[in-house]
């Protein structure tokens, strides 16, 4: 359907210019000499005729012509494309592309248009490609222009906008035209208008166009010349070091190069006579002052170039000006571009902040997922489980093993989530029954015993799965990212983790507040004796609570495994942060864990923002901050006060 419309449109466009020529060859033959020996002056005639012919092979022909792939047969002056076949050339008909025959090179002549002609052809070619019936070619042409913008593309591009059928491509063409106008429009007014039009677009290519307009060159001179469009005058010592300033003076032939320390050494070593240089014994030349003194004596005797002293260099720097000037000479254009760019930079900064916020949110979700299980075991039960990280790891490996058997990624994740819960729930219950229940009210001992478990589980995972990272592949529909603009983008997997975190938050709150299990859990933790007398079995409740917390760790493991690699040490990477999250947030409170995760996530991203290259430093400072934070709010953000908080 679309194709039909395009054909009709193409016909409409070309209809008024229908030429007598039926094919390319005959049309070219009518300008045989101009095609075979093209010159910049005459090529226009051929190009105009080709343009009005509407023949489908025109674009292809222009490309071959420009690329010197067009040959002429000496005997009849007909044009061919060729293909190499051993020593012979295979001739291809320029209209049909069919093999016409083979012949020796000596019967043919390659057509080699000069630079001017090639430029004219290229410009015409742009026009053809931009109007090509095939949308992929039009797109390619637009992309090609976007990659390398030149002044001569402007006219053909503008001409190709009105007839564009595809709405998206049309918008793209118009946008590109604005960019071209900003740089290359003939009048200042047109450029200013284009620049203003660009000022609310934060994309990278717009910024590139504006930066291109604002390209500067650095100069050193006696005074600022009036014919340059000066961007900024540079303060020596602030904008530019005096070392660089002096180097610029040397480059501009305004000063003599300074003698370097290494030059002094080589001059001195070349002038040793009887163990002395200029009368000074060599062994005394172990200070800079002594060396300079000896060198100056040599220079005074004419044996070396005179050394420019620091003071002299400083004087030279002070008597010159250093400045950046725009390559663009029109001051109105540069001013407008600068204004537009500043505006864009502000918006980019805002977008960056938004992007960072999203990043922080997803990091917070990961911390939350890692810590929420702990919030149950540590926060509600008061049991400290250092093997919690290993439960996360177990969940992730469960996901990995499931993927070994279930090749469909979507299905495998659906299977892995409950299975990971089941596996770590069982592991948690086993740990509670075998170890932890003997150690209630001995928190430090619990901490130690679970350390032992953690060490053993980590090594066990290493023995089974090896030390290299194992992949946990997310389904294809989670690949890619939600792109809001050139700056703000967030991968779907992070959104999924965020959603998972919210689901878990609601689930835990629901279990603790609304279910019988949650009620009994709170009863047992607050007063086990009373709870037992009311018919609640504290053993069973402790077991289930611990299993629940561990099971959540397992699910968190699958989620974290999707986002990071699965290794035997992944749990250890999260355990300290997880405890920090629970402690910072306030123990015994799910909302506190949420607050803690949010704070830590935002804090870490915030610190990374100041020093983006260094995640290690960000983590270091974050931990230091948390240590300080706990000084001032020892009971966390969401603190329980009074006697209920215990002593």
């Amino acid at each position: 359907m679309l194709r039909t419309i395009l054909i009709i449109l193409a016909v409409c466009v070309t209809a008024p210019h229908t030429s007598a020529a039926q094919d390319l060859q005959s049309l070219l033959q009518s300008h045989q000499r101009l095609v075979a020996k093209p010159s910049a002056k005459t090529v226009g005639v051929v190009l105009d005729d080709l343009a009005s012919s509407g023949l489908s092979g025109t674009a292809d022909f222009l490309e071959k012509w420009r690329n010197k792939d067009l040959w002429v047969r000496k005997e009849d002056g007909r044009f061919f494309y060729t293909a190499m076949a051993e020593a012979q050339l295979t001739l291809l008909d320029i209209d049909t592309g069919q093999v016409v025959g083979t012949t020796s090179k000596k019967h043919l002549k390659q057509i080699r248009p000069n630079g001017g002609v090639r430029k004219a052809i290229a410009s015409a070619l742009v026009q053809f490609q931009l109007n090509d019936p095939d949308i992929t070619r039009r797109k390619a042409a637009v992309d090609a222009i976007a990659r390398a913008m030149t002044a001569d593309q402007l006219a053909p591009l503008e001409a190709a906008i009105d007839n564009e059928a595809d709405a998206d491509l049309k918008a793209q063409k118009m946008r590109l035209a604005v960019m071209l106008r900003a740089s290359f429009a003939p009048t200042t007014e047109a450029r200013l208008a284009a620049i203003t039009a660009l000022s609310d677009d934060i994309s990278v290519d717009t910024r590139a166009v504006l930066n291109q307009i604002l390209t500067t060159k650095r100069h050193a001179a006696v005074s600022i010349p009036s014919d340059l469009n000066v961007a900024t005058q540079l303060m020596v010592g602030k904008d530019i070091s005096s070392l660089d300033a002096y180097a610029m003076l040397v480059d501009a032939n305004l000063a003599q190069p300074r003698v370097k320390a290494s030059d002094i050494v080589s001059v001195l070593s070349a002038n040793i006579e009887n163990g002395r240089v200029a009368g000074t014994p060599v062994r005394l030349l172990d200070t800079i002052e002594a060396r300079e003194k000896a060198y100056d004596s040599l220079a005074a005797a004419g044996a070396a170039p005179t050394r420019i002293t620091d003071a002299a260099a400083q004087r030279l720097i002070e008597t010159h000006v250093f400045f950046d000037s725009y390559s663009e000479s029109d001051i109105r254009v540069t001013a407008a571009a600068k204004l537009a760019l500043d505006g864009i930079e502000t918006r980019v900064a805002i977008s960056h902040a938004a992007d960072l916020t999203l990043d922080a949110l997803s990091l917070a979700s990961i911390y939350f997922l890692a810590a929420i299980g702990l919030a149950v075991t540590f926060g509600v039960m008061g049991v400290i489980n250092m093997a919690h990280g290993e439960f996360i790891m177990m969940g992730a490996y469960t996901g990995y093993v499931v993927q070994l058997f279930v090749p469909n990624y979507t299905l495998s994740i659906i299977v892995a989530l409950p299975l990971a819960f089941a596996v770590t729930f069982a592991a948690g219950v086993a740990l509670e029954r075998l170890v932890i229940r003997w150690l209630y009210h001995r928190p430090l001992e619990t901490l130690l015993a679970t350390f032992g478990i953690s060490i053993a589980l980590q090594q066990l995972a290493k023995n089974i799965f090896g030390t290299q990272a194992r992949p946990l592949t997310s389904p294809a529909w989670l690949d890619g990212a939600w792109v809001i603009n050139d700056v703000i983008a967030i991968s779907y997997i992070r959104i999924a983790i965020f959603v998972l975190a919210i689901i878990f938050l609601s689930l835990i709150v629901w279990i603790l507040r609304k279910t019988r299990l949650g009620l009994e859990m709170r009863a047992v933790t607050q007063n086990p004796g009373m709870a037992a007398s009311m018919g609640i079995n504290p053993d069973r409740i402790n077991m289930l609570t611990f299993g629940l917390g561990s099971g959540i760790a397992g699910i968190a493991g699958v989620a974290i495994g999707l986002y990071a690699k699965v290794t035997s040490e992944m749990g250890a990477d999260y355990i300290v942060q997880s405890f920090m999250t629970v402690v910072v947030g306030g123990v015994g409170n799910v909302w506190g864990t949420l607050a803690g995760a949010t704070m830590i996530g935002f804090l870490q991203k915030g610190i990374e923002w100041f020093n983006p290259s260094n995640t290690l430093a960000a983590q270091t400072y974050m931990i230091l901050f948390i240590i300080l934070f706990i000084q001032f709010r020892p009971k966390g953000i969401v603190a329980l006060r009074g006697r209920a908080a215990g002593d």
Partner: protein
Amino acid sequence: MNTLLELSGVSVSFDGFKAINNLSFQIGEPELRAIIGPNGAGKTTFMDIITGKTKPDEGHVLWGDKATSLLGRSESQIARDGIGRKFQKPTVFEAQTIRENLAMALKGDRGPLDVLFHRKTPAGTSRIETVADEVGLTKDLARPAGELSHGKKQWLEIGMLLAQDPRLLLVDEPAAGMTPAERAHTTDLLRRMALNRAVIVVEHDMEFVRRLDCKVTVLHEGAVLAEGSLDHVTANQDVIDVYLGR
């Protein structure tokens, strides 16, 4: 009889619950005072405030001859000022011997370096033996405190307070879990201690309070409900209402 400790207009609340509500109280030196009150009357919080464990939201706590404020002083400073506290549950250092327990409590320098280079003195040893004799633990001096019976642990704790030689003694339910004979002994001990210092006894057991034979303060909902001799306060209609329910 000088005023040793004075609380005026003290209030403290936990999450909106007023545990102590505009409480005023004073005790002289020497004096024996019993504090009674139903559960949740704020007896424990009252002691927490005096010993610096809980900071009141408002009010003054003044101490000693110069009426210095105790607010803002740490628990250990207040203890060094001369306020000793005996907890409801006997808390002695079970892993250490009676002698070590008493030695730790013995009045003296409390700085880490003083303690590190502390030497045993004959005076100290004899003081420990005197205290042990007073609480009836002379024979047990070398035993670990953990091996003592519940009642003896209570006495050891009282002995530690004696060794501390405080000017004011706060005693929380000393008779809990004691045999009648032990109770009688404890009453004697408290009365003897009150001869030259202030002693505040918090107790549920009316019989025990009666035997102390001293001024009684009744706390209710964080404030003083009545004060006077036991017979006087038990005749008070408010007190009867509180204890028997309306």
